[in-house]
């Protein structure tokens, strides 16, 4: 499953970079993302992702590894984890790119979500809709955080 968004932000890349690398703040934009802890700044984090999908509740302890950083224009992270109860594994690769614009910057986010396991086998279609909604909500919250008009 692939998702993408792009928005124009009034802040220049360097200022936007500072906001986006405040992990505690940005993680609040991700629906269901809780207990975020920094293991090593801009390298490793842990979190718990809680989701309700149809009749199932999923709780995925996730490891987040920052795979590539190129300040102040690109960060690629990979979050992965496994829900113990349903044996469902979740992996999300997120690429955030900041491009200078005439005024401010353009923020581009591309996500690849991979779900495997019982929940995926039962109904990836439902998961896909849920993931789409989550991504939309992430976009809204991020816009709110950055003060961008929706």
């Amino acid at each position, binding site marked *: 499953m692939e998702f993408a968004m792009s928005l124009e932000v009034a802040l220049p890349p360097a200022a936007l970079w500072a906001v986006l690398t405040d992990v505690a703040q940005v993680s609040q934009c991700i629906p269901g993302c809780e207990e975020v802890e920094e293991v090593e700044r801009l390298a490793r984090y842990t979190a718990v992702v809680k989701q309700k999908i149809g009749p199932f509740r999923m709780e995925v302890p996730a490891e987040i590894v920052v795979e590539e950083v190129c300040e102040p224009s690109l960060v690629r992270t990979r979050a992965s984890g496994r829900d113990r109860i349903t044996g469902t*594994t979740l992996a999300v690769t997120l690429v955030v790119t900041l491009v200078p614009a005439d005024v401010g910057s353009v923020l581009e986010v591309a996500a690849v979500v991979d779900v495997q396991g019982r929940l995926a*086998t*039962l*109904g*990836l*279609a439902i998961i896909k809709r849920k993931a789409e909604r989550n991504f939309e909500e992430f976009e809204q919250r991020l816009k709110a955080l950055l003060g961008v008009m929706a």
Partner: protein
Amino acid sequence: MIRFDSLSEARPDSIDKVTGRAVYATDLDIPGMLHGHVVRSTAVHARIRALDVGAARAAPGVVDVLCGADVASLGCWGLVLKDRPILALDKVRYVGEPIAVVIADSAEAAENAAELVEVDYAALPRVPDSKAALAPGAALVHESHSPLEDFYFRGGARPIDGTNVFHRFLSEVGDVAAAEAAAAHVHEDHFSFPPVFHYALEPHTAIADFREDGLTIWSGAQSPAGVQKVVSRLFGLPLAKVRIVVPYVGGGFGGKASVKIEPLVAAASWKVRRPVRIAQSLSDSMLTCRRLGARITIRTAVDREGLILAKSADIVLDGGAYADTGSAVATKAANRIIGPYVIPNLRLEARAVYTNTVPGAAFRSIGGPQAVWAAECHMDNVAAAIGLSPVEFRLRNLAARGQRIRPDLRPLDMDMGELMGLVRQAMGAASAATGPDARGLALAASDPGIVAIGNALVRLKIDGSVLVAMASVEIGQGVHATMARIAAETLNQPFGSVTVLPTDTGTAPFDWGTGASRSTVIVGASVEAAALDAATQMLDLAAEALAQDRTALALVPGGIATPQGFRSFHEVFHLAYGVDSGEVIGRGALNPRSRGGALREAPLFWETAAGMAEIDVDEDTGAIRLRRYASAADVGRVINRVSAEGQDEGASVQGLGHTLFEALEFEDGQPVNASPVDYNIPTLDDVPDDFHTILVEHHDGPGPGGAKGMGEGAILPIAPAIANALFARYGVRVNDLPLTPEKVWRALRARS
């Protein structure tokens, strides 16, 4: 002289079915039987780092757990390539691959304990589809290939080492490049066809009982002899010690052909030395097999008169994680894309490739629906490009009866122009509601891949009752009633006096299997020969016992007509044997050497179909409704009209499924809709109000009374006929199935 009255008599199986007495594999209870539940891979392509079955083994009711390590020494099995372990060993190749079987004293206990099996996977690079499979540097689903030769079909797979291609077929006739260079017009199209689930109402179910003195398997298998051969080799058992019993089967359509879950169930019983039953759910069966999806490039060169000079096709089939009989599907797709046309230059290439998805399998007219979808949509495109009507373009290029469409294939044994005329005639004038344009036509000529080996025993009892033993599977098509009718007519006994024994390799002589439209022809001819043999023996016995001239005697119901009057079989046996007991046993056998080798040339007969569709399109939603449909086939001879028409209608409506609704979808290898909730098939509401089946009989087939095989052809034309109707009415061409409302709506919008 054989005669058939063609009047339908109630099929014994239909009475069993409507009264609920019919027994399927799932209804059987073998003393001491345990229940197995399959633990399946949830990973698309991964190494198994660790498998922990300790908690499952300790769970209440659990007797044992079968793992890959238990069966590793038995090796791999397959039909065209030996590529398949009984259970995943060190790696899994698709979501749904069996990893372990939890064996318990109840199905519930097994299912509950299966939840406790822990698998630790290390993901491997995936091959999610056929494009990825052929990409340079693609991950390999199988590191090496082990093709088998003449094992299940004649010939074998032709894999390409170091690639995911497990079979490549190439057929070249003439010089396509030169013909294209000289052509007035060359037209190329690209089509795709998704994987489709068979959706038999009865999911795969089998019971195995492995004992010291042999192995018995009860299964809804279409190919009992294939199952017998594979498990006998896997477990090192003599064929005579392996018995396959097939009760009634709730639909197969190729999804129960060759070999499916039987080795797994046998291994479970082998481990616990008790009978084990595995009854899959429909969702499990959706992860067991499916039709091969296809991507097809097709190109035709025509001259100024609209005569086809050359055709080339490049067909890539998504065979899934294990080959099964995918190589044959590929070869047949290449044969079936030719169509009933005279084409002097051909280049046909088909490749079947491994992907990390549910294994592909035979499905009604293997390779045919994919090939004919592309071929017949393309015909209308070419016709439009050169300014001819679809009918005129076809008429100019049709092969006549007796012409060969490729030098290595038997000449056509039917008149395709006749079938085309019949469907057009049946449709009559267009409905006012749809207008004159919303009609489409499609034709198909397919070459059934028949292994011409069949055997039957017919036993004529002293009281005139008859027992028929043969291995064709009663899968809903009415084959047992057909065999009863052939035996009854040949012996001149009432239909009701014939009993066809349930399919059991322990009592029935060898038969290749139920598929490829072969049963009526091959097994029917074997039953006919066996009945003739029994009749000859009975008349010889009577001539001797009654001291009569043999030529003066004839079989009549219950006995013999003699110049002196009726003598019952009782009297004849009594006189001949001195006791009031006995029977004669007739044997019928057919093989490629029979009839002076006339059965050797392929195909044994042509299975043909013409279809014409009239559709309504809701322009606001893009939804297509099939309003009227006509289907015609040359079947040689109808033996049971109700069953034959049912086969034709059933095949058409099954084709309507892949035309408008069905696709087993995968996203990066993960099945997306592998459940009956998410997977759509046509219902009674989708069947056209007006449906014509026309069965042409020229009594010229190789089967009893001149019958040809049937039941598969009608699945072929419906998808292109509907798409051609959409093209005729709106000028839009949708190249990938199914023709969902969204695709049609987008195409209509793009046009305006």
